[in-house]
Structures are given as C-alpha cells and as structure tokens.
C-alpha cells in the first residue's frame, strides 16, 4: 500500500506539472493576436490536457483498485498519437515583433516550465520501480523535450528582431 501511495504522490505531482503548462498555454493562446501563434500555444495546451487525462486515469485506477491497470493506459495511446506538428508564428507577426512583449514572455516562461517538467519526469522515471511507470514518465519527459525544442525554435525566430525593434519596451 505504501508503494501505491508513493506512486499516487508521484502521479499527483505529474498532474500538477501538466496543469501548470496547460493553464499557461491556454492564457497564452487567448492573449496572442497572431493566428499562427494562437495555433502554436493551442497545440501545446492540447498536448498538456491529453497528458493530464492519461495521468488522471492512472491516478484513479491506483486509488480505486490499489493497483494500476496499464492496459487502460495503453488503450489511451491514440491520444498520445494525436500530437500535432508545431505551427510557427507568421512572418507578418515577425515584422511587427516590437509589439510582441507578451508572446516573448510566454515563450520564455514556457521554456522554463518545460525544463522543469523534463527534470521532474526524469527524476520520477529514475525513482519508479515499475517498468511500465518508468516507461510512461520517460515517454512524457521525451514529449516535453519536443515542446522545449519547439518553444526554443520560436524564441530564436522572434528574438533577434524583438530586442532590436523593442528597445526594451515597456521599461
């Protein structure tokens, strides 16, 4: 039972990590004016919501039955396979990038969150004794790694022009 409790705590931590990402990307999607930027953040929010769904099922299965049924998780693999390709911010947006303070901040905060998630999942994977759980956490760590790469790519796409154009606005 103690083992189940430890696993529950770990999954709960993972749900928190995913929820933080979901909340951030949802707000970023809402606040971004660029349509491609909106798609980009929406796609990240959707991924985090899917992760949450899987983790929630795992949590409920452990809580109700005192054990986890990975068959159910495996049935949800179709969710994980829907990961969309990251669309990018539009060229038009890049041209008026000096107005993009919020978007730049959202990308930086997203990068910080993804790094934190990767660290959390890698640590949890190392600490997990069950092979399937280990695999799930490693899988999530890899996926968050993809998010991190996508965010860094966006940041690079916009950053150089941003600082030149913005001259540190709003300060």
């Amino acid at each position: 039972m103690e083992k189940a409790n430890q696993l529950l705590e770990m999954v709960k931590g993972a749900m928190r990590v995913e929820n933080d990402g979901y909340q951030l990307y949802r707000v970023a999607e809402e606040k971004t004016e660029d349509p491609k930027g909106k798609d980009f953040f929406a796609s990240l929010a959707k991924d985090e919501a899917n992760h949450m769904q899987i983790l929630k099922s795992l949590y409920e299965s452990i809580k109700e039955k005192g054990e986890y049924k990975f068959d159910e998780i495996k049935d949800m693999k179709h969710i994980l396979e829907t990961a969309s390709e990251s669309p990018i911010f539009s060229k038009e947006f890049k041209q008026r990038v000096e107005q993009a303070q919020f978007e730049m901040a959202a990308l930086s905060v997203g990068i910080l969150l993804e790094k934190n998630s990767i660290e959390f999942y890698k640590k949890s994977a190392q600490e997990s004794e069950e092979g399937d759980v280990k695999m799930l956490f490693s899988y999530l760590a890899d996926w968050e790694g993809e998010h991190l790469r996508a965010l860094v790519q966006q940041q690079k796409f916009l950053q150089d022009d941003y600082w030149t154009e913005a001259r540190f606005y709003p300060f």
Partner: protein
Amino acid sequence: MLEKTVQLLKVLKEAIRVENDGYHFYRIAAQKTDDSKGKRVFASLAQDELDHGSMLKGLYQAIEDAGEPKFDLKKWTKKKPRTRSKSPIFTAEFRGKIKGEHFALSALRIGQLLERDSIDFYSKNAKRAKHPELKSLLNFMVQWERDHLKVLVDLENFLVGKL
C-alpha cells in the same frame, strides 16, 4: 568600447529580459485571477518587475552612453520592494472555493519557477562580476527576488491549506 563594458551590457540586457518575463506573466496573472486580494498581489509583483526593468534599462543606457561601466549604485537602488509576505493575501472565501486545477495556483507555482530562475541568474552573475558596484547591484536583485519567492510560496501554502 572596453570588453568589460560589453560584458556588463550583456548581463544587463539579459537581466532586462528576465524582468520583462516576470512583468508580463504577473500582469496577465493579475488580469486572470478572480480573487480581489490575489489580483493585488500579482499586480504588485508586476509593478516590482516593471521597476526593476526600468532601473536596469536606465542603467544600461547610462553605461552605453558613457561607454564605461561607471555608475552610482545608490541612485539605482532607491526603490524598495512593494510586495512583502505580509502584503494582502488571497481571501479566505477564495481559499474555500479553490480547487486543485485553478489558474491562481498554477500562476503561483509558475511565479516561483520564474523567481528561482531570476535568483539563479543574478547569483551566478554576482559571483562572476568583477566590478564591485555591479556585484552589489546583482546581490540587491537576488534579495529582492528572494522576497518575491517567499511571498509566492506563502501564498501557495495558504491556498493549499498548509498555512
């Protein structure tokens, strides 16, 4: 321009970016939070980051104009943090209705990540800084961001019932 000056400007530029991230994040958090006291806390954090950013930008421009890393630290560190642990906290009603997946909780945790990242950035650069005034300035920023971190940790603990 001296290599030392170029290095200093680079650190300041990165510091402005760090403050910019915090400012925009807390501003949105203030807009999105339902609770009136919670709104005030996030708005106060946003204002602190805006003050930091303005101070760093002023310093950046002064050094860039002078072409050398000379500045009067006292002039740049007059402002005091407005957000303290004892500043307004979320209301008890809000705590009663909050659930695990609420935006405010995520915002508090994301804020903690931001503050830890800032502390790490300022500490690392304070250690490296050879210029004594710059070292003091960066240490001053470390302390200020630590105060913010404490506020955010206390607020999260309050909302999840640990306080």
